[in-house]
């Protein structure tokens, strides 16, 4: 690892000021950044450690919902009584992420910033990867793409965003609160990550000097669930995942929100499905028809056609799980 200058920020203003400098990177949990520095994905000259910003380490009630401070550790968010009670989809997504000790380090604000797990991106040797070296191409497009995207990919990048919590947040219509010296931005989680047709080298819309200070979730979603399908039962990234929230009137769906994970460069909402589910009865054949409509735009790569079937079935099963919660 290259050496760097280490500073501890003593206020959010101080963090934004230091973070805006050339070659600066913000250090929160460190579970991603330190590995990027070891692999050579990033080599910052200045690390700004924000661990002392205690006001970002709280979960607070706001009008009609909760604001989760960016520095809250994943395990603390998942085990918070109000999150467990009102947002089981989020608690479940977090507890199926990483491992117990990683979740004690990783922060809720840093988690959506984790980068793609594409082996060509993570390799220490040089590969064609537009996210490592813009303009170099995408080795995964015609290479090992078994775990890659089925929605929204282009030949310039077929990688998927790996965060579990971000999928739950997308289904909850969560808002990422971002501060910089220019003021505050409120970014819906659904729009936080950048699809490759817009920029295959980009990860998120976060700019230099911008600091995530919290994530807001509003309407409680007690009928919600997160289903993660993976090759191991625990401590593994998803092949596909599905986050579902249901607003029910008895056995009838008043409103549904469905986000799929590890199928695209951002959590993928099945909007066509959501429209069709309104007024449908749980357990009826209408449910599968509605889910199928959401997959009309799915496109397989050479090695991942199985993910279309898997994701479709995961969405169906997650609707059942959400209705049982």
């Amino acid at each position, binding site marked *: 690892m290259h050496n*760097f200058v*280490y500073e501890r920020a003593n206020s959010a203003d101080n963090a934004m000021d230091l973070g805006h400098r050339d070659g600066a990177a913000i250090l929160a949990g460190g579970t991603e950044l*330190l590995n990027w520095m070891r692999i050579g994905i990033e080599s910052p000259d200045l690390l700004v450690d924000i661990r002392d910003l205690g006001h970002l380490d709280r979960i607070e009630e706001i009008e009609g919902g909760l604001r989760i401070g960016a520095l809250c550790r994943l395990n603390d968010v998942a085990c918070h009584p109000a999150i467990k009670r009102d947002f089981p989809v989020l608690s479940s997504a977090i507890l199926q992420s990483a491992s117990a000790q990683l979740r004690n380090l990783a922060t809720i604000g840093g988690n959506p910033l984790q980068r793609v797990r594409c082996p060509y991106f993570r390799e220490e040797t040089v590969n064609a990867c537009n996210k490592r070296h813009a303009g170099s191409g995408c080795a995964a497009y015609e290479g090992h793409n078994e775990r890659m995207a089925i929605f929204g990919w282009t030949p310039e990048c077929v990688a998927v965003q790996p965060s579990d919590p971000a999928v739950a947040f997308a289904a909850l219509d969560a808002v990422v609160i971002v501060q910089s010296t220019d003021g505050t931005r409120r970014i819906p989680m659904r729009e936080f990550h950048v699809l490759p047709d817009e920029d295959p080298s980009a990860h998120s819309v976060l700019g230099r000097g911008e600091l995530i200070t919290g994530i807001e979730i509003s309407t409680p979603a007690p009928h919600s669930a997160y289903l993660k399908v993976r090759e191991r039962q625990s401590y593994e990234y998803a092949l596909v995942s599905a986050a579902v929230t249901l607003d029910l009137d008895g056995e009838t769906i008043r409103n549904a929100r469905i986000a799929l994970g590890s199928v695209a460069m951002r959590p993928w909402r099945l909007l066509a499905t959501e429209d069709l589910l309104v007024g449908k009865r749980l357990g009826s054949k209408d449910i599968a028809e509605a889910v199928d409509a959401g997959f009309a735009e799915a496109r397989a790569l050479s090695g991942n056609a199985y993910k279309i079937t898997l994701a479709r079935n995961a969405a169906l099963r997650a609707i059942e799980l959400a209705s049982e919660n």
Partner: protein
Amino acid sequence: MSASARSQTIDISLTVNGRPVQASVEPRLSLLDFLREELDLTGAKKGCNRGECGTCTVLVDGRRVNSCLVLAASASNHEVVTVEGLAKDGELHPVQQAFIEADALQCGFCTSGQIISAVACIEEGHAGSTEEIREWMSGNLCRCSCYPQIAEAVEMAARRMEADNA
């Protein structure tokens, strides 16, 4: 790299296994390397150095973390406990004793991390059943695949500690 990056050292002050420690470290030094190379506490092992294997697990302020993913500089003003800090007055910690009795190791490389993680797992209240133990211990890999014996040891220790506290 700027000249200042090459020359910066950071004064840190922390508690390790109950003893106050002061040192001057390079920014890039991990807590794991600090424990092993500077303090000669080689219980925490350097397996993957990427937060994937769990053999570097230590307690920071009572919570289990991967020490390869913590900078020594970030650990300043915190309390660290390694496997060397578990035994008290020559008596093994109940988790250590249970690992011996349940034969929960073969090569032993992952064992320090397993034991620290198990201490935290029990403390957190996540040792209620074999299934729960296996889930909450999944961040500690064992390439000898002693998982059944490890889960048994954690369960044995948890039940004994509950009985002692009853």
